[in-house]
């Protein structure tokens, strides 16, 4: 009898929700890119504030697993035990776009979507010495000379590429896409006059205000960082594309733990110190939590799928 009670007690203890105790060991945040990059800096900033929100003794370890355009890190997160101790950064549309053009061990349903923090809109940008002063002039020329407009991109299958495709679809112009190795190289080529335009994210243009002319920003509303730049939508081209950075966990996570982490991330976002730090790093914020984030991911997935179906890039 005593043994039975003891056994019941033990099982009872073991099966009691870990929630009350969570986190009782360090939480890992897996970053699919190298330390020092934009995603890594976001992860470390969020981690710093999340640690406080999760309560006394909570510790968060940021682990960089760079490689294969982030795929190594995304895969690691999707395969991890959904116990709340493995989180990861999530980049849209990159993380889902790469599941279209190559074999990946995860898809849009492999994650529990916690919160998105950053949204960096793409742009249509030309060199400051370019003849094009407005988006209309630019597109008019591109339409007259199909294929002569060269667009420098950071790669194929990313938000730069999708931006160019969506602009082409919306305006009826035809562009020649030139995928460089990374955003910095694409920008250098644009500055050197080797390509005529680019679609780089707005944050990539901030340090080059005098050398680059941003013709339009591909977001719903004007960016607080560059309020003088019109959106493409205002100019009559309903195109929105951006690079999003958020935090996810593996799919199938216990609802209570999910809620606890979501609540903590909400609190992080409401902390003015956090907001200030993110702004200082030049991060355009777009906080989207929980189901809304999941919807956003699914929408991005559909966009990538549609572009892949229509104009496969590989």
């Amino acid at each position, binding site marked *: 009898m005593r043994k039975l009670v003891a056994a019941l007690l033990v099982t009872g203890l073991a099966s009691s929700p870990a929630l009350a105790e969570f986190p009782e060991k360090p939480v890992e945040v897996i970053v699919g890119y190298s330390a020092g990059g934009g995603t890594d800096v976001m992860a470390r900033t969020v981690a710093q504030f999340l640690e406080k929100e999760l309560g006394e003794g909570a510790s968060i370890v940021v682990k960089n697993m760079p490689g294969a355009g982030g*795929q190594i890190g995304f895969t690691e997160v999707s395969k991890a035990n959904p116990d709340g101790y493995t989180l990861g950064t999530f980049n849209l549309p990159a993380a889902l776009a790469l599941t279209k053009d190559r074999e990946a061990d995860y898809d849009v349903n492999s994650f529990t979507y916690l919160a998105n923090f950053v949204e960096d809109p793409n742009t249509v940008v030309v060199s400051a010495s370019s003849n094009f002063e407005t988006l209309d002039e630019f597109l008019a020329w591109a339409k007259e000379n199909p294929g002569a407009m060269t667009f420098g991109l950071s790669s194929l299958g990313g938000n730069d590429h999708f931006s160019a495709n969506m602009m082409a679809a919306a305006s009826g112009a035809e562009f020649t896409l030139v995928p460089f190795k990374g955003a910095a*190289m694409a920008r250098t080529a644009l500055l050197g006059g080797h390509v005529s335009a680019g679609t780089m994210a707005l944050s990539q243009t901030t340090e080059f205000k005098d050398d680059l002319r941003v013709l339009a920003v591909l977001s719903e509303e004007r960016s607080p960082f560059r309020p003088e730049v019109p959106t493409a939508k205002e100019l009559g081209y309903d195109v929105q594309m951006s690079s999003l950075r958020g935090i996810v966990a593996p799919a199938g996570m216990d609802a209570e733990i999910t809620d606890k982490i979501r609540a903590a991330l909400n609190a992080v976002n409401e902390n003015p110190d956090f907001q200030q730090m993110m702004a200082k790093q030049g991060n355009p914020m777009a906080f989207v939590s929980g189901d809304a984030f999941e919807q956003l991911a699914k929408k991005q997935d559909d966009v990538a799928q549609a572009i892949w179906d229509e104009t496969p890039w590989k």
Partner: protein
Amino acid sequence: MYSDLVHALPNVLDFSNFAAVVIGVIAGIVVGAMPGLSATMAISVLVPFTFGLEPLVALGLMAGIYNGAMYGGAIPAVLLRIPGTPAAVATTFDGYPMAQKGEGGYALQVAVVSSAIGGIASAIALMLLAPPLSKVTLLFGPSEVFWVAVFGLASIIFLLGNNVIKGLISACFGVFVSVIGSDPIYGNDRFTFGQLELLDGISIVILLVGLYALPPVIDLLEVPLKTDGVSGSKLGTEPIWRTLPRMGRFWKTWIRSSLIGVWIGILPGAGGSMAAFMSYNEARRTSKTPETWGNGEPEGVAASETANNADTASALIPALTLGIPGTAVAAVMLGGLLIHGLQPGPMLFRENPDIVFGFMWQFLFGAILLIFLGGSLATNSFARLLNLPRPLLGSVIIVLMLIGVYSIHGRMFDVYLMLGFGAIGYIMDKLKFPLPPVVLGLILGGFAEENLRLALRIGRGDWSILFANKTSLLLVALTVSVIVGPIIKRHLASKKDDAKRAGR
């Protein structure tokens, strides 16, 4: 254009940044003095560890090591006739006879002063040439960069010497390694065998650690080196201020060898040993007393040591401005820059002027420090360092390599990859396949492919875009002359021989 240079100076004189250069020079001299350990190896082992350091501390260490090692190689070359680094081979020709005549101390003083002069010349060349070049290279688009890469590949011919076939096989192996990973345009997998870790291609640092560091370490464990050290009387060291006036007559050699070293450094492909040989031969050819050469002519030591230090900073001129390294060491240093998120190329000078110009200052200070640090280290007690238990040294280096490579991306895959390249390097070493063409093949092959495809995309498939401007045409002409030049020279030489034979 040069104001950034002045702005960067205070930062360099910051305690930790300056200390890094001092430590680097000392470590470099030690490494260079150890036969079998080269600057390339020391820097490749170091690079992964610099991740957590401030960029200028990391770069200062590298600049110091490079300068120190190029001189350090002279110490055993003079005292024991064992070149500490491949670049010090030419130093043995006259350095060792001098030591036998009891002038070893003077030989080392000549070596240290010449090394410093070469290093200073090289640093100044980097400071003067890189900033204006960085403005020009912004105008280098994919087609121009493609031709630079082709030119570099063609200049591998310089490296081949008598073993053309083996050198070409090495270069082809390097080019093959460059195609591993996703292709630069569409991202199709090539030779990845489903390994995600290979999608980004082979990291140059991992290849270099495996290829350049592992084989010498195995050698270290394989071959016991026995030296009896040197007896004090042979050195005959006098205070340097008394010997300096005697060196005055080398000024022509110093200038000539500096120019040769700087030029060889800028050329992709060739490196320190080639600079040293060329400048030794030139100096002997122009000498009034060629018969003393090889029997302890201090000017021979000056020629070799000036040149092998004069290629250090200049090798970074194409590396920093175009991202195309001139030597294997420059390639590792680029790896070091990339680890710190510094993308080489024209934008580097704009976005991180303090770092890039600080790095140049560090090269200059490294060279100047050589006189002080190198002079005091070149003693008998230092020569005894060579008797350190080699198995101990070897195992320490292997452990550092393993930790270092693991820490780059935090994965064991890279460690296995490095060990694999180590095995390949070891076999190549034994079969006398040259290693530099592998590195250049990897770097330049990748550049050539990527930029050719980008250029053709920009030109919408029209190949004439490759010849569309003067820069491209100039580079094509240079490439042709590099390939055809030696053939014509050989042809003329054989004609001369025929003429001689006919005249007899």
